[in-house]
């Protein structure tokens, strides 16, 4: 029986500056964590966040680069405005805002992603299973109904 909370990690592929960290995320994430790797936080549509929540994630992490460090110059700036507001909005209809965490990473943040995920997992465990937002029917990768 699975007891660990399910966590979706939306990761900008440029934000982990240290190769060992990226290797860890790519290969060694615990099975309760699901990685979605993207070219940039600016590529994360709020719909993805909703899909993660409706797909059964108890918590969601968005990790990306700091301002002026974005590989595409300003993808992160666009992401911040949209996702902050999306969370305000989800909170308004009852979804706990604290189930989503932003992690903005810098060059010297080697090893930080592991700590953030562990810390976040502990917090989500305290909150318990997500009850707000209905869970959708399973879809297979590519979006076809299973």
């Amino acid at each position, binding site marked *: 029986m699975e007891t660990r909370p399910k966590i979706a990690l939306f990761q900008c592929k440029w934000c982990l500056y240290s190769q060992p960290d990226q290797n860890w995320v790519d290969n060694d994430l615990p099975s309760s964590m699901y990685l979605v790797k993207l070219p940039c936080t600016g590529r994360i549509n709020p719909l993805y966040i909703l899909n993660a929540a*409706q797909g059964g994630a108890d918590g969601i992490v968005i990790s990306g680069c700091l301002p002026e460090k974005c590989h595409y110059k300003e993808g992160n700036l*666009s992401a911040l405005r949209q996702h902050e*507001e999306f969370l305000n909005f989800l909170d308004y*209809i*009852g979804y706990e805002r604290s189930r989503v965490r932003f992690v903005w990473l810098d060059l010297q943040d080697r090893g930080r992603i592991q700590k953030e995920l562990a810390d976040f997992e502990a917090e989500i465990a305290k909150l318990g299973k997500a009850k707000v937002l209905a869970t959708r029917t399973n879809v297979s990768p590519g979006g076809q109904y299973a």
Partner: protein
Amino acid sequence: MPELTTELRKNIEQLLTDQVVDVVIAFKKADAPLRPQPAFFRNLEELEDLEYNGLCQNNLANYLTRYPHDTKIGIVVRGCESRSVNALIVEKQHPRENLYMIGIPCQGILDIRKIIKKTGEDVTGYSEDGDQVSVVYEGKEVNLQRSDLLHDSCLRCAHPNPVNADVLLGEPLPDGDPTIVRLAIEEFEALDRDERYAWFQKEAERCIRCYACREACPMCYCTECFVDHATPRWTESDISQAGTQAWHIIRAFHQAGRCTSCGACERACPMDIKMTYLTDKLNNDMLEVYQFETGMDDNTQPPFASFNLDDKNRFVI
């Protein structure tokens, strides 16, 4: 408002005769007296059917995006409609120089549901004069107060006067009170989480996915809406809990910084589902965080399109 309709007719006649515009988007009488319909006037003869009163439900800006950019469009606009037109100009959906806005300071749109609650379904006649509305039901005249019948969005309206209209028919009205909508949002926010979610569920989950709300909204002009996309399927397209919730969340969110609180979506919904409490929240946030109100001019980009490095201190590490 027969005088206003006459004045409007004269105005449109002139525009068409002088070939200032190719087509005028306005309302015409329909067989059902409570439901004037959007109409697209190109000939003077058709103007016979022109109608303008408090029952004109649609946001006419909705039809702007259906014309090629070189069509010269005349359009009758109330406060919210003019702002929707401005927002569409910002989004490059029609060039300003090919538009002619005939503005009408708006007394508010009446909610048909509020009328038939007081009478019954089969109303056969309608007229209004100032604050007096009279409808014919089962052969008898029923007198009602206009202010009792206003649609909820109009009760909260802050900007009844058209913005940037080329001509204004009638005297400008005093601005509405912007605290009304804020108080409504604060009242909702004061509920606890479970109550808020329960309310959201009660509304969203009655949805039959007819998409009338989308079709009524001037800002929902996407060639392919996210709900119609098949591979990948972003949301369930049936009336499952998850599907209806996703529809209500994302449709509203797509309007952030673009919605003018016209309420056309809510009026169009056959299930009488409340949804402006969602877009009003987003509008209010846009105002508080970015001092942005949709359509107050025709060149300011909405907040999600105008991000810049000024935001850098908001990246909390």
